[in-house]
């Protein structure tokens, strides 16, 4: 019972991450009609925004220590962060401790700029090209982005701890009166809430603002909206920026769970595409639904009881579900007919 409850929590948490990535992907597809294989790389860049902020906060000057020595037996050159010099150790310590949540601010700005630049500089020229070309050019871009990151940050994962106050695990069982064995990491609970809020905000934005209405209308029938004299182009650019920002903050917030490395985007890419396709290309609700569904299924498939009956099921469950859904529901869970079938 506890085990099942925990697996549901796991599934929601995973699903939150999948849904956040898939949301941007499907938004871009639905509005711009572009299949963006660089979306995983945007997730990765977001994660590296957190790393970068941490490094920025740690910019240091060197001070030769009088007492200590380094591994070669020479006087140790200490690195003293400017931050500590200027604001004192307490403020500096606080900022460093909270660098991951703070990095959301950086990620939003940086990723929106990256997204807009990407749309203006590259994607724009690919609206009328076949999907295959879009896949290929964005795939190339993803390789370039990740190699640039590797050049500066190396190939190994870089740890990004969560703030101390939420570092441990919460006693979820005690809250619900289910005993002490139900514990779950604070940060994962936060991540789930965070993804729910972001998803909700994106939906609210598209539902209740004029901008969102135009975008939704554009998703539905691009030419007509264009004929109304509305500059749909500029709005789509902003939509791309929005999608990039969502991917970026999803990545930044994910760093305490998964220490970021340059290749994490590619690791998530295939998965997020499967989520989008299962949900139905271009369907926002479908992406969120499929994200949570696949997250939960994946968690359950990993349970020993199930693995002992179907060995290796946890390795293929995502793909298996994708195959079954696509063969029974031609356009995924919530896809519209005629989308992406050419």
């Amino acid at each position, binding site marked *: 019972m506890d085990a099942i409850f925990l697996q549901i929590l796991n599934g929601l948490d995973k699903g939150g991450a999948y849904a956040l990535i898939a949301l941007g992907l499907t938004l871009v597809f639905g509005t711009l009609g572009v299949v963006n294989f660089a979306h995983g790389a945007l997730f990765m860049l977001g994660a590296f925004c957190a790393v970068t902020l941490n490094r920025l906060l740690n910019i240091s000057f060197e001070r030769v220590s009088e007492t200590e020595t380094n591994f070669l037996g020479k006087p140790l050159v200490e690195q003293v962060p400017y931050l500590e010099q200027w604001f004192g150790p307490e403020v500096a310590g606080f900022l460093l401790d909270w660098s991951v949540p703070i990095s959301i601010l950086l990620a939003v700005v940086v990723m929106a700029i990256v997204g807009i630049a990407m749309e203006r500089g590259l994607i724009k020229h690919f609206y009328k090209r076949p999907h295959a070309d879009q896949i290929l*050019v964005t795939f190339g871009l993803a390789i370039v982005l990740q190699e640039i990151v590797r050049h500066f940050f190396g190939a190994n994962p870089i740890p990004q701890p969560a703030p101390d106050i939420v570092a441990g695990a919460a006693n979820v069982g005690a809250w619900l009166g289910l005993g002490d064995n139900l514990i779950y990491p604070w940060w994962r609970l936060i991540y789930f809430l965070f993804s729910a809020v972001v998803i909700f905000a994106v939906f609210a934005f598209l539902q209740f603002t004029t901008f969102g209405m135009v975008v939704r209308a554009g998703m539905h029938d691009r030419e007509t909206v264009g004929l109304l004299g509305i500059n749909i182009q500029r709005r789509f650019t902003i939509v791309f920026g929005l999608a990039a920002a969502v991917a970026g903050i999803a990545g930044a917030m994910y760093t305490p769970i998964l220490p970021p490395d340059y290749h994490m985007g590619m690791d998530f890419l295939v998965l997020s595409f499967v989520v989008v396709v299962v949900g139905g290309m271009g369907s926002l609700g479908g992406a969120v639904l499929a994200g949570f569904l696949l997250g939960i299924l994946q968690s359950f498939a990993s349970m020993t009881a199930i693995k002992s009956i179907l060995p290796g099921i946890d390795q293929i469950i995502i*793909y298996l579900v994708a*195959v079954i859904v696509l063969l029974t529901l031609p356009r995924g869970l919530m896809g519209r007919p005629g989308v992406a079938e050419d």
Partner: protein
Amino acid sequence: MLRTLSRSDWLLLIVFAAVVLTLPWTMQPIGAAYPDLLQKFAIYGLFAIGFNILFGLTGYLSFGHAAFLGVGSYAAVWSFKLLTMNVLPALALSVAVAGVFAFLIGYVSLRRSGIYFSILTLAFAQMSYNLAYSVFTPITNGETGLQVRAIRASAETPLRDGDVRIIDQALGVQEVGIPISNLFGMKMSGYPGFYFCAVLLIIGFFIALSISRSNFGMMLKAIKSNQNRLKYTGVHTRPYLIAAFVISGMYAGLAGSLLSITDPIAGAERMQWTASGEVVLMTILGGAGTLIGPVLGAGLIKYAEQKVSSWNEGILHDAFSLLPGPVQDFFVEFATLFVGEGWHLTLGLMFMIIVIFLPGGLMEGFRRLRRALTSGRSSASRTMSSTSPVQERG
């Protein structure tokens, strides 16, 4: 069958054969004339030619073709382990197994088109890869890869650790250590291995050329151009698509088999989606829908993987040694971004540039170049020239 080809096609075939067979000499100036790389040129050339029959002619983008490559190489190694070190049974078995596997996956995947088809093939390939790496280890030997081994001493040794080679044993073939694959006694490593692959590449090219010039090929092109119209023209498109899928899967199986023949080991990584992505890159780089393009793309990517990745800083310093010190350092520093460990960056950039500026791949580049040089000719004859890729990007 021989009437399929026109005179210019025969010319193309002969030139192609001549170029392939003389590679060991012509590749010398760029340091690529050694057996392994030449073998890889031929093998991945075959893989790309086969992929192009599906993608280039019908426009269906499969992200799972590496699975057939992997299945083909496993089948070949099993043939070595169970039957004989002769390569012919291995070839036949690989192509057959890959064909059956392709039929199963194609039959299901081709119920959908567009990106849904791509994701279905991707899903099947990833399932194959994940299972081959873990729970299918008794068949695939997992991470270590399936290898040819000495004849097993007792029946208790698992087959993946000790071989039986029924046919060879029955013929009384003596083995010292671990045997090498052969074609009736001719060892299939080194240059003989390359020539074997080269001959198969030429045959494969000939078949692809024939298909492309045949009624069947015309139907495939018509599917890419307008599948709906073709249906209302009385053509059942699905069997054509399945046939194309199976044929290209068999090419992949053949390529996989050759990988095992020239180097008797089969690993699961060959089936990973990035490996499928690689053949897409090769085809696009050279020019999808063209005949020569995919082979060219395969050669370029394999060259980059082997040679560009080995240009370390020492080599760069020598290459720029004519420059004065600081300038030399700058150039070396800059160049290391793109070669050696940075070769992936080069690949990504090259790829973007091709897709952005030359959607028809390098072959389109050559055509444009030729057009620029001979701008006087009439346009009609060129647009419909034999190797011209299907253009019209609407």
